[in-house]
């Protein structure tokens, strides 16, 4: 091997600065975090933090509630986000600017501000309860604030753009001639949608679902304000253990469990994504 060959740009060489950056600020802290989680009393390696976590019903409930919340918000975002994306892609060009603005609007306000907005909407005398009361649908205000459902509603709105945008991306990549072909072969609108369009947007839905799930299970401000102190999700638990009680090893263990949860979902969804791509070809 001669010098000129060595100096020739290698594939991946450009990624070197990023690799160093990630190594320093991502991999190393992560390793430290996971190592800390196995630190027992006196610094010895132990599984104490994990057994303590699973030994308490409050913690296990926080884990299952967090997972449930993640799944629910993801599904809700899918159900609401898909039609929005579909509508956007098929809208006349003149409308698109306005629609883009409307879809992106929530991302332009801080989550804290939007959360306090939801407190106003979800309260006993809030928009939803007042409307339902005046319409005669309910007789006493329903409890939305300080409830799991309230957190679910607020987080769905807050993370919705993260679902809409990837679906828009995959919808707009679909060749419009496919629909025309389907139509010429006698496929109706519904059939074309379910057999052509929908499967082709699976990758978009999967990346949207990944984003929404990861963001939801790691949300801190919204669950603590809308849910109040009675609903405990993993990020609240991490804050409480790490910052309030200064029990860093336990906080690290909870963080590791949260990480495992997200990774498990990522692996599951990527496997699904691979299958869906095979189906498309």
């Amino acid at each position: 091997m001669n010098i000129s060959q060595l100096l020739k740009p290698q594939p991946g060489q450009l990624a070197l600065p990023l690799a160093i950056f990630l190594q320093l600020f991502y991999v190393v802290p992560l390793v430290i975090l996971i190592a800390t989680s196995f630190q027992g009393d006196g610094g010895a390696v132990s599984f104490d933090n994990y057994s303590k976590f699973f030994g308490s019903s409050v913690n296990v409930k926080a884990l299952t509630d967090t997972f449930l919340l993640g799944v629910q918000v993801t599904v809700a975002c899918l159900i609401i986000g898909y039609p929005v994306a579909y509508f956007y892609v098929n809208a006349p060009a003149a409308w698109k600017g306005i629609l883009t603005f409307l879809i992106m609007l929530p991302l332009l306000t801080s989550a804290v501000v939007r959360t306090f907005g939801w407190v106003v909407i979800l309260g006993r005398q809030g928009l939803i309860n007042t409307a339902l009361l005046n319409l005669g649908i309910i007789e006493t205000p329903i409890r939305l604030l300080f409830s799991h459902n309230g957190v679910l509603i607020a987080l769905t709105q807050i993370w919705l753009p993260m679902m809409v945008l990837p679906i828009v991306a995959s919808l707009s990549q679909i060749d419009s001639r496919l629909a025309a072909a389907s139509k010429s072969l006698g496929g109706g609108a519904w059939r074309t949608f379910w057999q052509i369009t929908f499967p082709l947007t699976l990758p978009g839905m999967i990346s949207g679902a990944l984003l929404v799930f990861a963001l939801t299970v790691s949300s801190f401000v919204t669950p603590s304000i809308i849910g109040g102190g009675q609903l405990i999700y993993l990020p609240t638990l991490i804050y409480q253990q790490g910052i309030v009680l200064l029990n860093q090893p336990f906080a690290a263990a909870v963080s590791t469990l949260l990480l495992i949860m997200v990774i498990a979902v990522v692996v599951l969804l990527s496997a699904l994504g691979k299958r869906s791509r095979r189906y498309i070809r």
Partner: protein
Amino acid sequence: MAKHQTFHLSRRTLLGAGLFAGTSLLIKACDATPTASNGGGAGGDDTSGGGGRSDLVVTTFAGSWEQLYRDVIVPAYQATAGGSANLVTMVSLEQVAQLTAAPQSPPFDIALIDEGPFNAASKDLFVPVPSELLSNYDQVAPELQSTDGWAPTTGIQVIGLAYNPNEVSTPPTSWEDLYDPQYRGRVSMQGMQTTQGTSVMVQLAKLRGGSESDIEPAFQALEQELRPNLAGLAANSGALATLFQQGEIALAPHDLNNVMALQARGVEIEWVAPQEGAIAMRPSQQIVANTTADLASAAAFIDASLSLEVQTAMAQAPYNFLPVNRNVELSGVLAEKFGSTLDDALSTLVFLDWSQINPQRAEWIERFDRAIQI
């Protein structure tokens, strides 16, 4: 082709190993920096001769405290000592967490910190303040001075009962009014992970024969009497404010200065000191250990906060903190609620012993979480 592959693989391994070694060296180097610069101080950016800076980084709490620092304390420090100060807003617990994480290179020089977290924190994180550097120390009421050489209390936040006058015709008079069935589903409080929440729970325990070390009666009252009244727990005082603003709750333990700030913004809210006494929260400014700041400048900053002028401003609207300087004459809402002198006020307030609370706080928080979960 196969050969090429092997070459690639080994090169990558080498790269990874190199990166790892490099990173570990770099981390070690980062860790050693403060000690090295302390040792070779001659080459440092010494300007004040004392080996430190007079431009301080100071923490404060968000809200009224930040406003007070910005408008009154920092200008007073600039006027008397000539230094400048940058503010960082952070709650006490986060400050302790940050100091604990980087004790050798603390991110700020002076910390405004609540009594409970300060008491619980490792004392290696702070340095005592030489009282000869605090010319205003003698004006501080004795019960607010520190017996161990730490800086005295800066100002007192008083926790009493806040209520919505539109919904509560006769103002509450006692902490036990929180259990009154007429407030079913209309009461809130902060969780026990906050200073305010823990203080209230300890006070509720005390009223039923408990103490700082025996919280049992408060948990009994919580489960049997308070829970039906609770609409929900507020995550922090900001959330509590929103709940009052929305008419969501009618009654909650809250501090006077936050309630006054809400009232000034037009929210329907009133505040009373319960007959058993309102609870005093005593945050203090402490000098952080291992800072590169000049000790004399840091002490001058604290001294400026204790001066009659600053303390007088602090005891007036819009801040409404109870001062610690006994020469301050109380006026306005403070005089109305507590009398005209600091001594009058101090005689009615409840002071909690955090040295007894802290060892059990973790256990209490976990128990509280279990008790309150839906």
